[in-house]
């Protein structure tokens, strides 16, 4: 049996998701540059809840999302995710989220369990490089850069559904957020990721940049369909909530 995460789940800091489920939200068009990096295996285990396995090898995904249209107006979201498996299924566990629009932050927090904090999130798109960064109260948290973007087929890119820790009427749960992506363009290039020690979880310090992509996509955030007990293996602790919540 593969290793499980060892995070002592503390619900206190997790977003509270209201009763009554969520309604889909369309985010269009959006640009989506993630940088993929290796990170230390021990660090990955320590930030994952016991429901999830780490990927082999461990990876962290440093991601920026710039949304031109949404129910809450335009916004930018920076996030840090850890590659994971819920039993055999590909997932990413959302560790940090920074958003520059308070309305969007509240919606993402209350409907989908994104642990959003207000931040300054920027994206600069060039032909030679694409850069993005997040800072809180003037202090940089992390920045990502894609160097030498080269177009690739839109079907080549894959985004794993996200697992977000949240307090729900059912108790503390991992919410499975599996957005629908309509990918229009994708470019791939070299990745550079830097983080400011202490600003984000140092256990995820990037050690080995793998790739960076820049995609133009339409994203639809779905209603939550599955939740999972963070302390039980996902194969045992997953519930379908579409039949019972409305």
């Amino acid at each position: 049996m593969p290793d499980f995460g060892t995070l002592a789940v503390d619900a206190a800091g997790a977003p509270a998701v209201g009763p009554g489920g969520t309604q889909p939200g369309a985010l269009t068009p959006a640009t989506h540059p993630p940088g993929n990096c290796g990170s230390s295996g021990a660090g990955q285990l320590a930030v994952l809840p016991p429901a999830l396995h780490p990927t082999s090898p461990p990876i962290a995904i440093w991601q920026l999302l710039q949304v031109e249209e949404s129910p809450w107006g335009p916004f930018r979201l920076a996030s840090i995710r850890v590659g994971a498996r819920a039993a055999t299924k590909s997932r990413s566990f959302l560790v940090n989220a920074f958003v520059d629009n308070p309305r969007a932050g509240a919606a993402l927090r209350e409907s989908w369990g994104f642990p959003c904090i207000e931040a300054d999130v920027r994206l600069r798109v060039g032909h030679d490089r694409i850069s993005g960064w997040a800072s809180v109260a003037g202090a940089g948290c992390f920045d990502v850069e894609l160097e030498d973007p080269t177009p690739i087929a839109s079907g080549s890119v894959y985004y794993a559904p996200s697992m977000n820790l949240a307090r729900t009427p059912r108790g503390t749960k991992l919410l499975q957020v599996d957005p629908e992506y309509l990918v229009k363009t994708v470019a791939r290039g070299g990745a550079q990721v830097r983080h400011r020690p202490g600003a984000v979880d140092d256990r995820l310090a990037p050690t080995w940049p793998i790739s960076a992509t820049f995609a133009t996509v339409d994203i639809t955030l779905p209603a939550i369909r599955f939740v999972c007990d963070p302390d039980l293996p996902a194969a045992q602790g997953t519930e379908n909530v579409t039949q019972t919540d409305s």
Partner: protein
Amino acid sequence: MKFGIVFEVSVPRPFRPGVEKMVVDNCIEQAVLADQLGFDQVWAVEHHFLEEISHCSAPEMLLAAIAMRTEQIRLGLGIAVCVPQFSHPARIAERAAMLDVLSGGRAEIGTGRSATWTELGGFAADPDETKKTWDEYVRAIPRMWTQPTYSHQGRSFSMPERAIVPKPLQDPHPPLWVAVTSPGTEVDAADRGLGCLGLVVGGMKRQEKTIATYRRRIQLCDPVGSFVNEQVNTVNFMYCHEDPAHAMKRGAELSDHFNYLAPQQLFVKEIYPTQSYATDGLFSALRQESTSSGDSMKIPDGIAIGDPESLIRSLKQWESIGVDRVVFILNSVETIPQAEVLDSLRLFAREVMPAFGHPPVAGSVPTSADEVA
């Protein structure tokens, strides 16, 4: 139809001292028995860095040990990863030739390019290049075996004129295969006159289409070797027991463990988008399942798990769509006790293989009772 076995060398956690030796010893014992029972081939995979699911990073050494203890069974090396960061092609040619010499001409060589970032990233290989390097390797290796000396100026490797020795014992050289997991690779196999080593477990409908394409296309091939190896070899699980309920229970444990461990690796498409690793069989299955809640796994049609009669039915189906050989995964992380694995092999040889034209097993094969005594 010919039958064989394949070793992933999957090792259960915790990785206590001696546990890998226990697994390897069990593999060798299975191979020795398979040889005595009339199985045709034993394959050993090449994987790197895949904890639990495969600790078989030096398959030629495992096969050499098996070669020294067996007489008839053919030895499948592979797939050998044809990527420069893993191995220079001359090293693959040398190792395969030495295995052929050691075994008295029983080697077969599978080729491929790896599908996981776990492995490719571990060697800092470029996923965009692996199809091209594989192509260069499969054209080079037969010439390394058959020419007195070899030199090459190429894309993925270059070398001045050298004698690559030893030469294989088989004349002109061992059969060459390629792993076929991504759609379209069957065409690559056919165009080059290579055997089609279908690694997708199950999926009979898809395999039928793949085989038909392969058979049609190979008629027009430009072989990379000295002969055309038109054969289709698929991989399957196998657990055979007289009691169908027990067989299903044990077989489900085997396939469930394997299917649970395989997706824990990081696939190229997840982390390094490239057309060179477009959606393939294993990964698309993973992706398809990734948005569902996790239904319990079932044993699909065509899997060789059950009593002898049901195995004959399943394998006859494979035979009817053009499969020449089936190689079986017998265990995963030692889920099934070794004695039961050996009994399953014996029962398969006694009850199933004769239905495919294999002669009855000779009476001198040791039984589990002999082992206890």
